[in-house]
């Protein structure tokens, strides 16, 4: 089938503002949208700029806004976003992250927020030999948030961030939650200055957009709410991991 890729373009060396450009491509309904973008790049316009790598939804490189919604281009099939001949598929960069060129956005600030939550284990105990023990129940408690691939779809979709606030955002909180709810970790105190700050967990207003767009199906909003609750419990002296 033929579809039209309506791509938002911006070249910092030549353009004063972004504009849309259409590319008509012949595709199979079961092709990935990334396949269609690669066809444009390799056969129609080599200057089209976007990131990609694993091409099956694991590396997080090709998050973009497709028909108004954040998705991974490699995890979106043409038939998911186009149902008829000559359908127009609108492709834009992620929102709320500065555009570098075409569909490429600047992740610098995103990864700064990731780093400040101290996304590494503060071990509860030193293990001399072998592994920490962890029950199936304890392991299950943080399983969902381990799936995060840091693609920033949630960041882009978050209405609070789109307002231009300093909210550290859903992804950083998901990364913090991955440790806060790990029975082997004792780092909630060390993360409190970031999580409990004015731009920490509290700006979240439960719009649920992060959960809706997460390509890994993480219940992001739930993780944020659980983290809020855990911070309160901890400050009242009751955090179970202490």
């Amino acid at each position: 089938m033929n579809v039209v890729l309506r791509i938002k373009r911006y070249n910092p060396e030549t353009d004063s503002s972004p504009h849309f450009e259409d590319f008509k491509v012949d595709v199979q309904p079961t092709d990935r949208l990334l396949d269609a973008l690669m066809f444009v790049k390799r056969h129609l316009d080599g200057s089209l700029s976007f990131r990609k790598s694993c091409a099956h939804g694991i590396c997080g490189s090709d998050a973009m806004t497709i028909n108004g919604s954040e998705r991974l281009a490699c995890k979106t099939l043409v038939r998911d976003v186009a149902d008829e001949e000559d359908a127009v598929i609108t492709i834009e960069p992620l929102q709320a992250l500065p555009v570098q060129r075409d569909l490429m956005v600047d992740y610098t600030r995103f990864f700064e927020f990731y780093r400040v939550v101290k996304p590494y284990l503060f071990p509860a105990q030193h293990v001399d030999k072998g592994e920490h023990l962890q029950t199936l129940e304890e392991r299950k408690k943080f399983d969902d948030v381990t799936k995060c691939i840091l693609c920033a779809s949630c960041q882009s979709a978050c209405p609070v961030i789109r307002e231009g606030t300093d909210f550290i955002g859903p992804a950083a909180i998901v990364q913090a939650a991955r440790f806060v709810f790990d029975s082997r970790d004792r780092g909630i105190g060390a993360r409190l200055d970031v999580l409990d700050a004015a731009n920490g967990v509290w700006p979240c207003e439960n719009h649920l957009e992060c959960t809706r767009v997460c390509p890994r199906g993480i219940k992001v909003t739930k993780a944020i709410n659980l983290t809020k609750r855990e911070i309160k419990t901890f400050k009242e002296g009751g955090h179970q991991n202490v």
Partner: protein
Amino acid sequence: MSKTQTHEFDAVIVGAGGAGLYAALEASSIPGNRTAVLSKLLPIRSHTGTAQGGIGAALGNVEEDNPEWHAFDTVKGGDYLVDQQAARILADDAVQAVYDLENRGLPFNRTLDGRIDQRRFGGHTRNFGEAPVKRACYAADRTGHMILQTLYQQCIKNEVAFFDEFHIVDVLIEGHRCAGVVALELATGALHVFHTKAVMIATGGFGRMYRTTSNAYANTGDGPAVLARRGVPLEDMEFFQFHPTGIRGMGILITEAVRGEGGILRNREGERFMERYAPTMLDLAPRDMIARAMMTEINTGHGILGDPSQDDYLHLDATALGADVLAKKLPDIREFCQTYLGLDPADKPIPVQPTAHYAMGGIPTDLDGRVTADGEAGVYEGLYAAGECACVSVHGANRLGTNSLVDLIVYGRRAGRHMAEFVRQADLPTLPGDAATHAEMIVKRSDKKPQPGQAAKIRTSMRDIMMDSVGVYRSGAGLSKAVEQFKALRAEAQDVGVGDTNQAYNTDLLEFLESQNLLDLALVTAASAAHREESRGAHSREDFPERLDERFLCHTLVTVEDGSIRFATKPVDTSIWKPKPRAY
């Protein structure tokens, strides 16, 4: 072109996957060592993250196991082309390496008594081949994702300096001393010289030479190609693994753990055909044997279409596992099937065909990750390699499942440790006055005016030739022709330009450089395969179907100089187990 900048470090690691990050952890744990990691990708995008099923280590948490069995399986799985002391180190160190990862936070799946859970994988056996053993430690079917995350987290903790989206263009070698690397910064188009006491190459694989592959777009063999251009020989390039179960047409990997948990391969008659090829290990035989069995089934009309002239396939039947096991132990696999095939593997078999997956060969190194020169000529001082781009050699002619992750962790760590110690004592070598000249020339070539579609045509031809003539089965005639075709394609590629003339974020230029690297590696892969007139592991010659130890129980070293290809050999370490015929 923008002005070239120069940076000074004690150690520079190229690549931010499992091997590179583990090396960075080691190098950065010595106070005062200035360590930098260059990656052509953004953080945690590296291909290690896509590894699925598990990391092998003889913990014995679920049933009796020991590292000696693991080492033996590795040697036999590699069809005796494995260096046996290297395999012992791999298996012995794997145990502590897995505990280290767990201690640093890696969320492994657990047993009922709270220990790291383990499952079966191809070629891993109890007591030297008696029966399958549960050796693969796993975090659902995202073990690589968890390893990559854990290592990156620890690097943040150690405040390692990262240069993201820096693409390696050249390595500076004078005599046998490495003095640094030259890299292209994607954001600006500028070249950067990294002047350093030691360099580690950890750029991963190069499966993108093939039409159907499980590999990421980024897997273009930049490290080995750059070194080869500087005269460093490459080892055992003829051995390229096809993973038996890629999603039909797309090549997306379906982990061997599906078979480890009980999945079965079936032909169009519904027969479990592996009973005829590997009566003991069945669907858990090594990958090379299963991939060959599948191609034989397809070529004799037992594929699902029953028509070898089409791109035929077979079925991976996981319906017996049930929805619950799939959800708990293989959730991503289930999701891939739903996303890309519109089917649930709990209800329907998965259409699969072999997919180009892993390079056993690469940059030759010693047991400490130091890059070695031709045969006995010693090492390159201050030059290291680890991970898929390197060849220690622990995989020999065919890698066992899970051993890629083991290799990253064990040899990434060993090489990192050795390098950290080396830079503590070494002086900064003199930087050549013309450090960036060679790199400028490589990047400059792209200034020629491109003809529309020409680059794509060359790339497509390369991938088709590799698939058709340098695939699961090979023949002398096909390989010789492939070598000539690659020579012609390389010549043609000299005249291909880059359409995008901008400086900032020029991904067109990046693809141009990557294609050159792939073409160079395709040539040496085909040439090495033509040179080895026997069948061993993943290298299957229709015209030489037997393994010939008298002539070929040796590693291949290949060098390309001024268009002519030179071969040398290197002995295999068989100091523990005598080579035997291989049966499963």
